[in-house]
Structures are given as C-alpha cells and as structure tokens.
C-alpha cells in the first residue's frame, strides 16, 4: 500500500446545542487517506461525513484525537489540501481568471506566474475562453469547473470534494465526473489522493477505490468496501450494478440500526430524529411499490430509477415506511407488509385512520404529543414544550425538522392540529366538540 497522506486517529467532534448541552457528531473516527486512491464517504444527512471532511480541510478543529497530514498535526487549512464546494463558493464579483488565481494571490505569488498557472489550470479543466467571464454568466456545470480549477491550481496533494456534483443536473454532473476521472487516470492532476463526500451511491461506486459508509448519531465509520474494478467503469456493467446493490444493502442496514426500528428490538425514542419525508412521497412510493412491475417487492436501485428520486431521498422514504410498519428492508430490497398493501389499496378516510393508528404505535414523539393533548384540559400545548425536549438529543436543525415532520404526519393522521401563527398544537376541532358533548352528557 502507498504511504498515508492524511490520518485521523480516534477523532471526535461535538457541537453545543442551543441549551448548552454538547451533542456528539463524530465519535472515535479512525481513517487513513493513502497516496493514489479515491475514497468516497457515504451516509445519511447528519451522519457527520461533512464534518469529517471539514476537519480534514482544517476548517473546524477536532475536539479529541489527532489529525495528521504527512505525519504532522494540522490546526488549520494547509496548502497541500484543497477543497471543492457543493454550491461552488465562487466569488461572484471576480472573473473566472481572478477566481482561479485567488489562492495563489493569497500566497503572495507574483502576477506573471500566477496568471500563467491559472491559465493552464483553466485550460486543463476545459474553460479556455471564459477567463474574463463573471461566474453569473456561466451555467452550473461551468461554475463547478471553475471551482475545481481554483482548487487544482494550488497543486494540492489532496483534493476534498463536498458533494461537488449534487447541485448539478444529472447529465452535467456525470460529464464533469467523467472528465475528472479521465484527468486522474491520465496522471494529469497534481493531486495524489481524493476524498469525495456524496449521497449518490452510483457516483461513489463509479469513482472510488474505497467506499466508507457512515452511521449516524453519533457519526462513525461503520462499513468499508474496497472496489478493485478498473476505471473507466461501465454504469450498466454487471459488476457495478452488483456493487451498487451491495452498497444499498449496507446503507439500509445502517438505516435500520441507527433509526432504531422496532423489528430489531430497539424501540425508537421520543428524542430521535424523524426521517424528513412528506406524506405524498410516502404514498406515491407505496403505490408504485404495490403496482406492476414490483408487486410488493423492489430492488432499491430500480425503485430509485422508477421514482426518479435521489438515493438519500429514497432511503429516507424507505426508513419512514419501515418505521410506520408499511414496509420491510432486506438486503437492499424493500418489501410491502400486508398492512402496507392494505394501505396502498385503501380509500382516503381509511388510509387516514390506518396512518393515525400507526403513528401512535410507532412514533413515540407523536404519541407523546397526542397523549399531552388528550390529558390537557384546554386541549392545546405550545410547540416550545416539545422543541425544548428535542433539543436535548438533537441539533437545532434536526429539532425543527423532527417537529415539522411530526406535525405534518400528525395532521394527516388527524391526531392533532397546529396553528402556525401562535405555534400551538391542539386537538382536532370535531374531536373537541365530541369531547364536550360527552362531558355534557355525563353532567
């Protein structure tokens, strides 16, 4: 094996949440990036893969453990490590040429040399002729090319890519990826190793020599997969397809474990993250799953193709469906349960009844909200009560997302209502009337 460039040794990172309690994002991560390899990091959003990338970039410091670059500790961004950003992060007021020169200028390089180097980087990445353009004149794909040229001109040993292709449309993203792999294989890049954070499984399999799958809460490397296929790889090739299947399997297995589903014997807790999935997506997926050609059982990559959803969207939907007991995951396949089938075929009102029932059974947060409302004489509770509770275990963004999901689901299941203006959760109106009626009857 080639020599290591970046090493992480039992690195941990936690962030302070709003109430001051620390929440662990990364725990005990060991990782080595070796010369001559491309490594892909896969994982659900919030699994800490972005944090790990930023620790390596020197943008944030690790709380514990060691970060070594060529055997020496790093405390901030190093010259030999460069980064490409998801939203390009180009300076809109600088021309393409000036954007590419940025890092060289910061280093204090003389104008002549700087211009020369930027020119060749621009040419390498296929942007010649656009030197004088402002970023806003370019399409997304061209902008990301500028972002890559800007990173490459620094002649970095390590290139970090933070979901570099996910803001582009599929075609443009693939094209750019292929171009970069071509340069890499042709030995035209100064770069000795690349680390790619992605949530696109196909992208990871097409690019990487090694795929790391992250588990969340707290983030850690759970699985590692070596890919020995020669590049360029064929997307439709049998080897690639089976690898994609395999990674799907690893990812969904992770979803089960980290989501703490009932079937593994670990019940979900009140303060757990909820998959951010809307009702219509869930129902749409259920219906597609119940129909031809799947008839209740589907290969996840095929389902992704059919539904035109991205991998992480589909994985979120899958974990929501398993959470509610409508589906099961097995070896990268998704299967409808009898209840899921019944749901897919049911009428609207029946669906709502089933949905509401499953929520109470399987989603502790929603059950807890409902319980509070039923007990409370006024029949309404302020959302802050629940937000405070969630903040103990979740980050601010996850807290808001969890409550938002709970509200959307709970509304649909007719378990409670929500007033946006006042931020209160309350009992559905007709139930309240019924309860009053009962109270009067008793009196």
């Amino acid at each position, binding site marked *: 094996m080639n020599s290591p460039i970046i090493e992480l040794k039992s690195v941990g990172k936690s962030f302070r949440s709003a109430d001051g309690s620390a929440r662990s994002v990364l725990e005990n991560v060991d990782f080595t990036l070796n010369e001559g390899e491309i490594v892909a990091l896969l994982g659900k959003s919030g699994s800490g893969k972005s944090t790990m990338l*930023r620790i390596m*970039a*020197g*943008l944030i*410091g690790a709380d514990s453990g060691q970060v070594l*670059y060529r055997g*020496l*500790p*790093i*405390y*901030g*961004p*190093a*010259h030999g*490590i*460069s*980064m490409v*950003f*998801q*939203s*390009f*992060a180009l*300076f*809109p*007021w*600088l*021309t393409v040429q000036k954007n590419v020169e*940025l*890092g060289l*200028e*910061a*280093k*204090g390089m003389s*104008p002549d040399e700087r211009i020369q180097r930027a020119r060749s980087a621009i040419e390498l990445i296929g942007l010649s*002729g*656009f*030197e*004088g*353009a*402002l*970023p*806003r*004149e*370019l*399409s997304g*794909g*061209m902008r990301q090319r500028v972002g890559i040229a*800007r990173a490459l001109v*620094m002649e970095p040993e390590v290139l970090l890519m933070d979901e570099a292709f996910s803001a582009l*449309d599929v*075609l*443009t993203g693939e*094209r*750019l990826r292929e171009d970069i792999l071509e340069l890499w294989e042709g030995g035209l890049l100064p770069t000795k190793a690349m680390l790619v954070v992605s949530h696109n499984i196909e992208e990871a399999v097409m690019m990487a020599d090694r795929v790391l799958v992250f588990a969340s809460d707290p983030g850690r490397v759970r699985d590692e997969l070596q890919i020995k296929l020669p590049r360029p790889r064929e997307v439709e090739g049998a080897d690639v397809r089976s690898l994609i299947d395999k990674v799907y399997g690893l990812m969904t297995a992770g979803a089960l474990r980290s989501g703490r589903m009932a079937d593994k014997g670990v019940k979900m807790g009140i303060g757990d993250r909820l998959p951010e999935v809307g009702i219509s997506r869930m129902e749409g997926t259920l219906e597609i799953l119940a129909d031809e050609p799947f008839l209740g059982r589907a290969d996840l990559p095929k389902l992704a193709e059919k539904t035109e959803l991205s991998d992480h969207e589909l994985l979120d939907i899958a974990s929501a469906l398993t959470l509610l007991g409508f589906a099961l995951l097995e070896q990268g396949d998704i299967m409808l349960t009898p209840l899921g089938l019944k749901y897919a075929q049911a009428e609207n009102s029946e669906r709502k009844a089933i949905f509401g029932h499953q929520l109470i059974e399987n989603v502790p947060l929603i059950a807890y909200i409902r319980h509070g409302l039923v007990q409370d004489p006024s029949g309404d509770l302020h959302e802050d009560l629940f937000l405070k509770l969630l903040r103990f275990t979740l980050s601010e963004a996850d807290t808001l997302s969890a409550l938002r999901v709970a509200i959307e689901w709970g509304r649909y299941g007719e378990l409670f209502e929500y007033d*946006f*203006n006042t931020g209160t959760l309350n009992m559905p109106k007709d139930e309240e009337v019924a309860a009053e009626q009962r109270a009067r009857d008793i009196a």
Partner: protein
Amino acid sequence: MTLDTLTESAMSERKQFFPRQVVETGWNKWDWALLPMVLAVLVLLAYGGEEMSRPYQVGQALDLSLNPEYLPYYLLRTTLRMFIALGASIAFSCVFAVLATKYRAAEKFLIPMLDILQSIPILGFLSITVTAFIALFPGSLLGVECAAIFAIFTSQAWNMAFSAYQGFRTVPTELKEAASVFNLSSWQRFWRLELPFATPGLLWNMMMSMSGGWFFVVASEAISVSNQNIKLPGIGSYIALAIEQRNLHAIAWAIGAMLVGVILYDQFFFRPLLAWADKFRFEESGSETAQESWLLNWLRKTERTKGIALAASNTLERSFVIFKHNYDGTSIRARPLARSTTPERIWDAVLAAVVFYALWTLVHFIHAEVSWSEVGLAFMMGFYTMVRVVVLIFLAALVWIPVGVWIGMNPRIAGRAQAVIQFLAAFPANLMFPVVVFLLVRYHLNPDIWLSPLMILGTQWYILFNVIAGASTIPTELRYAAQNFGLSGMLKWRRYLLPAIFPSFVTGAITASGGSWNASIVAEYVTWGNTTLKAHGIGSYIAEMTASGDFPRIALGIGVMCIFVMGFNHFIWRSLYRMTENRLHF
C-alpha cells in the same frame, strides 16, 4: 452532444464581450474629452479646499449674500462638505463593521452604542461638539467646517455602519470557508470577500444618507447653538439667511440650486457607482435590470481611467503580498490557544461598571442640575411627540400605500418615480416654513396640530419608496391568481395586497419614524423672520434649549428622546419586523 457542450457553444458565441482590454488598445479619442473635465474638477476641489481653511476668529461675521450669482459657489461648498462627510462615513462604517464582526467583545459594546447614537438628534451632536472643534483649529475656519461636517456625518453614518455590519455578518458560509481553505489573510478577506459582499447594501444606504444629509444641511451649516451664530458659506446658510430675511425669491433660488446639486451628484457619482457596483450583486439570477450610466460607459472607454483603475488594483494586489498569511495550518502558530473566559469576564465587568457609573452620574446630574419635575416635563413632551409620530405615520400610510401599490404595479412609472422620490426625500422641510408660518398666522391655526405635518414631510417618502418596491416584487403568478379569482374591493386589499406589501411597509415605516423623531427638532420650532411658532413636544424642547445654550436641559431632552426612540424600535418595530420575517414573505 451533451447538454453541457450545448451550453458551452452557446456561451462561446458571447465570448467577444469579455476581455475588453484585449480588444481595444492604444490612445483613444475619449481621453481628450475627459481631460478638461478632470482638470476642472481638480481646480474646483482645490479652490473649495482653500476656502475651507481660511483664517477666522470666532465672532467674525462671514460674508453671505442672497445674490443668486453666488449659488454655484455655495453649492460647491455644501457638496464638498457632504462628500467629505460621506467619505468619513464610509471609513467609519468599514472600521465599525470589521471590529464588530471580528471581536465579540467589541460587538457587545458597539452595537448598542450605535443603536443609541442613531437615536440622538443631530442638533444634539452639533451643540456638544462645536466648541471643541473650534478650539481644535484656532484662528482658522477649519474648526467650524469640521463641526459642520461632523454634523452632516452624524446624519449619514449610522445606517451605513449598520448596513456594512449586516453585510459583513451575512457573508455566506461557503464563501467564508473558501476564503479559509485558500488561506486568505484578514486584509485579503476584507478586500476580496467582505467589502464586495457588503457593497450593494452600503451603496444603497449611501444614497439614502445623502438625501438625509440635505435635510439637515441648514441646521449644520447655520450653526446657532450655544450662543454661537456662525453661517458657513453654503446652501444651508443661504436658506437660513433667506428665512431670516423673509426672502421668498431666494428660497426659490435655493430650491433650484439644490435640484441641480441632486441631479449633478446623481449623474456624476451615484449612477456610475451603481452601474459599476452591479457586479457585486450576490443573487446569481440576473432578473434585476442592470443600472446604466453614460459616464461609466464613457470612463470605461477611456485609456487614462483604465490605466488608473489598473494601477489601483495593482496597488491593492501588491498590498496582498505584504499582508498575507505567512503560515498555513501545519504550523504550530495555527494551533488554537486554549480559550480562556477570563478576559471576557473582565470586559463584561468593566462594561457593567461603566454603565453603573454612568447611571449614578446621571441621577446625580439630574438631581443637581435639573429638577425631577423637569424630567417629568421632558417625558410629557416626549409623549406629545410620540403621539404626533404615530398619527402621522398612520396618515402617511393611508395616503401612500394605495399610491405606492399603484405605482409599483406599473413598472414603467415605477422606474421614473424613483428619481423623483429621491429628490423629494432630500427636500429640506425648512423650505416649507414660509408657507406654513404664513398660513398658521393668517388663519390663527393651532401650531400643536398644524406644525406636525412638517415632521413627516421628508420622511414619508421612505414609506412610499418601500411600498413601491414591495408592490413591484409581488410575484406575477400571485397577481394572475388574484385576477382569476376576481378579488376586488376590501377583500382584495385585505387578503392580497396588504399582506403582500406589509413587510416592505414596515421597513419603510421604521426609517420614516426614526427620521420623524429627528425632524421634530426642526419641525416643532419654526421661525420665519421674527415670527417663531412652536408646538409642544420634545423636539421644540431641545431646539429651544439649544438656542439658549442650556446644556443640562439639552442633555436631558436628548436623553429622553433617545429613550423614546429606542423603546419604539425595540417594542414595536422590531416585533413587527420579526413577525413579517416569519410569516409574510413569498
């Protein structure tokens, strides 16, 4: 052919627009035309500057004539003052924004400080600082000039500083990270990232400040505080003199000169600047139409100016070499120091101590210098003015919301209206005094009621301005939907138009109410020749005390006004603003 190559080929057809330096080289005809203009400007600046530092003794009367022939000269002097103040405001804003965003300790102190400073009426500054400035430059006019410039500065700087701070703070995270990854030093970051990002907001506020400056130019040039009576040559003093001598013709001339001034600096300064600053817009969409400026197009065609611009950018880049980061993250120097909370605690303690000391002095001062009943009176006055402000904002809303919505929905009118409204916003209320005094005396009207409209004269335009902006950004689809459902009458306003423009109305009303408080000093205490009319209110209280040079009461009046303005901002505007941010936007 993939999609990307398609866009690439489409792009390359537009390629000839990009590198202009390569297309045009050599001497060009525009250089000749520009030369006299540049020379003329230089001569004027030198002349104005020389006049500013003439010898002067306190008490000496400065020649001032109502002859319109002198107006161009007065215009030059006034404009020079305003631009110096503007320059100072820009420098202040940048320093303020850097300090407040880089150091938490500074932020803790600076933000509330600015909050207070902006609610202090500018006359307050003038009365406190004029003697100090005169002492600073004995025997020269420069001291008085500085006092006047400082007063103009105080009417321009605060909102610019806030906008710069806001801009520096809201630099997108990814751009910040990119700057870190490429190891930009603080100096490089300031010029390459933070200042460009804050520029559009800063520029917009500069224009607003310039208008605001005109409003107070009379007060700041004709200094009649603490028993001084100095009239610096300028449009403001010209107006003041015209008011003293009841000369309506002169007033008309002054309005004309102001109009010329506004048009000149709009055409020669702001329009080129706006057109140039278009590249700093951050939104990636090109929906907003770019500003056009004939002067900028002209300058861009000229070799000389290109040379100057190039030299400037080269100098900047050379400075980057000097102020660069000399080490990267692998160096021991990048190692984060263990964070100690002690200095922060000490700083907090110092701040608290200063606050307590100030509070104690204040109580002591009030007790010794002015009676507590005087404080009660001042608060009563403040209450009167508050009632005025509230009623006026409400009335202005009634009038300008329908007008603004109508203009905003007609894009062709909206474009032209903008320039007109800016002039109206700059229009000093003082120029209306003759008419008002005449009417009030003639018909024996109650000054408590009829002087009030003067307060909102200059500031109502902010409401109109923002409502127009709000109405013109109503999404077309929403407009079609409203038409489709046949919304009309009250329902149309309640359900569609009012909610749609409410956020921009609130923004405008905040500015308008702040301005009205400030204007109350001018508007509640009005003179025309020997006639003086005054309305009960904190503004007239301050103006009266200022005229008689009663420092303790000036301080009391200013303090009370600050409390009212800040209370207003905190309890009413901010909560309204937050509400609109949460709920009412597209």
